[in-house]
């Protein structure tokens, strides 16, 4: 693999200068490269011009991201999201694409005509169909979120740069076997599992990772997936601390950029992962560099399963507050059945069985109200 970079302003025709493109073509020939990947965004004409000179396929980093996404998409919904992202990427380029294809007399473009318009219209129609379908999935998600919150379940999301170890942490926390790999975008379909936090029930969701300069059309296309993060009660921002400190800072910067305007006041816990791979001195130096980007940080090693109780403590501290009360129930079968319901809905701190059953209880407000109503009902 070769790497080529240019300092001056991008050239309109090739992005790189003409001389650099020729240098690139030489690299391609020497190495027998099948593909050239540009970090910068390329226009359709630039892609066409460069591939003419290099004689191989040329893509930019956004197309690369889309190709990785397309490979990883397994469910109907994620396939639709990838297709939507592709179409949104393609739409502004539709006219230029058709013009170039017509120039080369490719099959399907037999003569002059309004192909540019019709191709663009086709894309728009397909985009609108997919958006409609995804919108209905979004409504279902919202209804599910409301239902889960009503059930007293707090929603916690794992967020972070791609390949930070979110799925590994997810597996360790909920004892699940989600697929984990040392490669970006292993998770495209969010996975949710129950998480026990010492009596408080929560749902933990593993989500798609972020990437630098996440294009807005990609965020739009994956809105229904990313909403899982933006609309949760707590966000666990997972960071791989074993990397170069400057890279860690850049990745955190990207995460803050993606999250800041969309999450409102949702608390963030920064999970500094992979601490088994870093010395304490290096960790201290890293914290100096990234402290201002790491709210409520905790250390863990998801792979080794260390420091997890500390992480769970931190999560508990940020869960929506529950109320506490003392209830007095009759020591009868009705009283016992209410007690059993109390165990299901909240945390029973203490029970004294005497003439009456005295319960120190903690639960969300609605449950406390209902418990008090039962208490009064049974007292009558």
């Amino acid at each position: 693999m070769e790497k080529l970079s240019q300092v001056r302003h991008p050239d309109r025709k090739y992005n790189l200068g003409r001389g650099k493109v020729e240098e690139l073509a030489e690299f391609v020939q020497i190495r027998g490269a099948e593909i050239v990947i540009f970090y910068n965004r390329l226009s359709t004409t630039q892609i066409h011009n460069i591939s003419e000179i290099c004689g191989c396929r040329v893509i930019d980093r956004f197309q690369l991201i889309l190709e990785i996404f397309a490979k990883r998409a397994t469910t109907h919904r994620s396939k639709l999201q990838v297709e939507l992202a592709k179409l949104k990427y393609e739409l502004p380029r539709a006219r230029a694409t058709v013009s170039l294809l017509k120039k080369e007399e490719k099959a399907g473009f037999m003569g002059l005509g309004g192909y540019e318009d019709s191709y663009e219209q086709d894309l728009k129609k397909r985009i609108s169909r997919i958006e409609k379908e995804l919108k209905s999935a979004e409504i279902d998600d919202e209804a599910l979120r409301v239902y889960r919150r009503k059930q007293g379940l707090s929603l916690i999301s794992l967020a972070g740069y791609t390949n930070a170890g979110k799925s590994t942490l997810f597996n360790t926390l909920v004892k699940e076997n989600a697929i984990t790999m040392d490669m970006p975008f292993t998770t495209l379909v969010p996975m949710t599992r129950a998480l026990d936090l010492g009596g408080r029930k929560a749902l933990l969701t593993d989500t798609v990772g972020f990437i630098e300069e996440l294009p807005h059309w990609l965020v739009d296309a994956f809105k229904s997936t990313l909403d899982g993060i933006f609309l949760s009660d707590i966000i666990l921002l997972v960071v791989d601390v074993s990397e170069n400190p400057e890279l860690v800072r850049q990745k955190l910067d990207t995460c803050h950029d993606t999250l800041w305007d969309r999450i409102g006041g949702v608390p963030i816990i920064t999970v500094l992962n992979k601490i088994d791979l870093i010395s304490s001195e290096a960790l201290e130096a890293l914290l100096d560099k990234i402290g201002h980007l790491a709210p409520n940080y905790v250390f863990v090693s998801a792979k080794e399963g260390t420091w997890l109780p500390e992480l769970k403590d931190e999560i508990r501290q940020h869960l929506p507050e529950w109320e506490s009360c003392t209830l007095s129930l009759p020591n009868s079968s009705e009283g016992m059945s209410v007690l059993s319901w109390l165990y299901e809905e909240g945390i029973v701190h203490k029970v004294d069985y005497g003439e009456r059953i005295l319960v120190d209880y903690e639960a969300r407000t609605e449950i406390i109200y209902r418990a008090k109503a039962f208490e009064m009902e049974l007292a009558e």
Partner: protein
Amino acid sequence: MWDIIAIDISGRHRIRDGYYLVCAAAALSVSADHIEKIKQVAILPRWLKGKEIKAPQLPDIVQLIEDTVAKLDYDGTLVTEKGDLYNQPLWVSESMFSGAFKYQESMAERRAIELAHHISLSARNLLLKELNIEAGQ
């Protein structure tokens, strides 16, 4: 917590007589994800008048920021959006200011810039109206 001064400048587009820039500087204490305290806000308008004047140059922007910050009673690291300094690399921008300088990174810094942006934009709109400066494009 960290002390920062969030900066934003409105009015980089030409109006009839030149460029009417308004710089807002807000002195704040921030944590990683929240603005903890807003301590003071300073606003400074500046006319770059004349037909010969093209777009405001980097030294004009730096001088305007320095002059606005001088009106504050609090210290802090200056924080701006990269675009406000024409996307200059950090080492270039850093070297032009007398105090500590950085581009926005954390959520709190981004929120602080948003606050400064609303202040500078509203102040400029108000000044244009009150001083009867015609915004003829």
